[in-house]
């Protein structure tokens, strides 16, 4: 089954950005970074004549439901809505704090309950926060392989924000945080703009007919 898109409509279609934030304190620097990344992406999309809506998923609010789904196999309540929105997104921004040398357990638990194809081919921008810049490679050794496994289309620039990065000058004289955020937002916007807008997929569109299953 395939649905044809109305002629002339694609460029006008609104893109959907879904932001996943695994920060647990409030206020959270992880959420702050996630918001900045989203704003940069929206600006860059606007510069390309594309409007975008942003939906932010705070994993803290879904923590109990994520554990329940781990145990029962099905998503309940707000988690079910979050998973649906994520799978239907045109682009995803995923940001986690560094806990004990890796992504937060809550972040991984959320990734664990995603459908295995939910992020396949999805433009994804990765971000992480931590106390010092000494954790910054977490993006490369932990987050990028995880999203590689999911066949996500991860943009080249990931953004790590240490506590110092939030100082006036952006913490780094050569590549201050605001500049890195702009660059990452631009890369994600390019990925989103190149892609056909996500269509609401029929739940069972991909089921082969039984003749195909039988091999006839």
């Amino acid at each position, binding site marked *: 089954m395939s649905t044809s898109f109305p002629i002339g409509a694609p460029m006008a279609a609104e893109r959907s950005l879904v932001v996943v934030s695994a920060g647990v304190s409030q206020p959270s620097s992880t959420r702050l970074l996630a918001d900045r990344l989203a704003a940069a992406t929206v600006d860059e999309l606007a510069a390309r004549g594309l409007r975008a809506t942003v939906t932010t998923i705070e994993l803290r609010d879904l923590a109990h439901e994520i554990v329940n789904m781990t145990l*029962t196999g*099905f998503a309940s309540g707000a988690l079910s809505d979050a998973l649906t929105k994520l799978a239907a997104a045109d682009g995803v921004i995923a940001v986690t704090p560094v806990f004990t040398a890796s992504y937060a357990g809550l972040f991984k638990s959320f990734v664990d309950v995603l459908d295995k194809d939910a992020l396949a081919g999805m433009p994804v921008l990765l971000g992480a926060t931590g106390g010092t810049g000494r954790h910054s490679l977490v993006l490369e050794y932990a987050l990028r392989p995880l999203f590689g496994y999911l066949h996500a289309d991860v943009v080249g620039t990931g953004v790590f924000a240490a506590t110092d990065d939030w100082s006036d000058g952006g913490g780094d004289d050569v590549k201050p945080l605001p500049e890195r955020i702009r660059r990452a937002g631009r890369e994600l916007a390019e990925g989103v703009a190149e892609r056909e807008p996500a269509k609401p997929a029929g739940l069972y569109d991909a*089921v082969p007919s039984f003749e195909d*299953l*039988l091999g006839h």
Partner: protein
Amino acid sequence: MQFGIFSVGDVTTDPTTGRTPDDTERVRAMLTIARHADEAGLDVFATGEHHNPPFVPSSPTTMLGYLAGVTKQITLSTATTLITTNDPVRLAEEYAMLQVISDGRMDLMMGRGNTGPVYPWFGQDIRQGIPLAIENYALLRRLWTEDVVDWSGKFRTPLQGFTSTPRPLDGVPPFVWHGSIRSPEIAEQAAYYGDGFLHNAIFWPMEHTAQMVNFYRQRFEHYGHGAADQAIVGLGGQVFMRKESQKAWDEFRPYFDNAPVYGHGPTMEDFTRETPLTVGSPQQVIDRYGAFWEQVGHYQRQLFLMDHAGLPLKTVLEQIDLLATEVVPVLRQEAEARRPAHVPAGPPSHAERVAAARAAGEVHTQRVAEGDHWTGRTAEDDVDAADAVAR
């Protein structure tokens, strides 16, 4: 509409007493439960099939064959028969034997099994679950409908000139359901053959169940077996009842909280809201289960899980009594009152299937193999047979 019970046959410690039945006690409890369901007037008893502890029902046709002899009216079924790891030749033989012994008072439900390690124990691979279910079932059907089968496929050794015995009762195979929770390919399979589809909804929200059932209905119509609302649908369910709702909640909560599948996860409040699990009075069960047809259409079979999570036998028998005396008569009457005339009341009985096959000119009289050239001689002497194998 049929109402019955199904058992997964789990051996679970009663969390309120710390007592665990041994395997023998659990098997005997299942037999007692099935006989009690028959006497109470329920329509179906279905046993699971498992090949790993803590589950005891490894040999369904032995159990159901015994039950066929000691029960009067109840339909004996499975929930489910492993179409992936069982040899379809043995399934054809065993279930045709059960069909003959029970005089057609049986059907069966195919399922894949979701326990990875069980597959290699039987020489299979869980990643091939769907292809196994498709190939094995296609062969099973041929073994029941064709007297002599030549076959080759991917998952089992080829057959040349094979006849599965006993031939099905009156030349008409048992009615088959297909059970699946998440795989639309299995709904597609059920629809293709015009078989029944049962969605075991007990751990899932009803919205998900409705999507799968409605997909099956549309595909049933697509394959020309009738209108979508004439497809044969079953649902799994789960209830715990006492006359007073609060007593049911208090009594069931420790079993819920420690249950093997969902224990230590969602609260019973969440789970009863999100899934068909209903804890309360018989009237509350009637209200909830009497409304599922609004989401899935009129359906033919409702099964309940009653004997699990360590509930003592005495309690299970009380639950069966409440179900059979207070709930089922009302639900049955309501279902019959609203059922459109063109929609089947239940799944087809053996007699109905025989009548339909005769009307369609499909049924042939039962036959025994005319010349048995296989036994009583050595293979070396039997040149024809040896040639047939070599071909």
